[in-house]
């Protein structure tokens, strides 16, 4: 039962296929080698250091809301 976390792309390094994503107040560096055409502001589902796929802003908000309902995130995420 492996949760995937939505994060917003806040920085890109195309040379290394890496992105910095924002998850709540935390920033994480993830590989975007598995996802095509990633741009600043996109939402990505991330898991153990890799972006799995792009999702819409609405899907990201819904997912974070579910984490909040489950008590896994703070209310301000």
């Amino acid at each position, binding site marked *: *039962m*492996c*949760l*995937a*976390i*939505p*994060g917003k792309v806040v920085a890109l390094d195309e040379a290394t*296929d890496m992105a910095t994503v924002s*998850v*709540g*107040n*935390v920033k*994480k560096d993830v*590989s975007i*080698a*598995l*996802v*095509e055409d990633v741009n600043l502001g996109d939402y990505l*589902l*991330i*898991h*153990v250091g*890799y972006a*799995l*796929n792009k*999702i819409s802003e609405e*899907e990201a908000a*819904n*997912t974070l809301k*579910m*984490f909040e*309902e*489950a*008590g*896994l*995130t*703070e209310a301000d*995420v």
Partner: protein
Amino acid sequence: MGNGSDNIEGRLDIHIRLVDGAITDVAIQSSRPLLTPRIFTGKSVEHLLTTLPLLYSICGTAQANAAVTACEQALGIAQEPICTKARSHLVSLETAKEHLWRVLLDWPDLLGLSPEATGVGETMQLIKRYRLACYPNERPFFPGVHPAAGFDGSAAGLIVELETLLEQRFFGMPAAEWLALGSYDALLQWADQVDTPAAAMLQFVQTKEWNSLGAASIASLPNQSHGFYDQQLDDVEADQFIAAPQIDGCCFETSPFTRVQDHPLVAAVCAIDGAGLFTRQLARLVELAGIPSYLRNTEEPVQTDDPNKQLSEGVGIAQIEAARGRLIHRVVMDNELITRYQILAPTEWNFHPSGVVVESLKVLNADSIDQLKQQAAFLINAIDPCVGYELHIEPR
């Protein structure tokens, strides 16, 4: 709990304790959020099936298949064989993707080589196209939604693409030919001759003489009826069962190895090395190599006994073979709304405090702390938790 993604996912803390260099104890603590499915209480089936794959997207296909199967049972909707087949194909492709991830990303990392992300990315794109060929409406996991007529034909070219990818990036020969190697010696000879991460891993393990590393005897999870899981998950101690499942006080393993242990090549190696590192790495490759022929099988699954016979009205149970092992969902519905939702994941069997990972780590015998860390990393990856983990070596 903070709001960083590590905290959301949870993790496993694996402690190996040593006295005078010998392992005296192994302990696993999990902070995985196992009760997240409670958020579906009071929600509709449509809500569950729309949102669940977003929550669990690393194994989202198996999760979605388990969810729709359980809901169809609870709603009294018979699952038609053509739906079972198309959905099983998509789960099987997700398993292929997970195996590719281990072999092309994790194994090079363990061996100090560069990861081969391209192969995983290509497979993920291929899976999207396969899913679209089966379900142009993009709703494979909703009750009563059928796959496109004749999807086998439109997906046939994609199976050929998968075979080509496996030949080029894994086996250096057609996967079916590789599966027929037939002996341990032939396998070692293949590993010497082929330059892929799969061959490099087997060669590395052989060179280090780590073939039987971590061989432990934990029985395979037996087939259990839906009624059995319904009873366990309806019990007042259901949360404890979900967190640390046992049957009659015994731990069990559910994994790619337990699924293919009867394959002649796996059985031949296991007879010599036991269920150690080499056998486990091989089992992953064997299961992966068999997926194209599974997808090509045109027969529809045989309908077994009606599972609803064992369950109360409004209750549904699904048992799905996900990439890491058997995944179980249980739903209880009243007036078309969910009143209880539970998930029992394979990681809880395999990473149980007395389960196969603990037993495997206990029998390691390394020359140094660094070597112990390396051996543990290889073994844990071979059994594969679905979350990150932290390894703590604690000498006294």
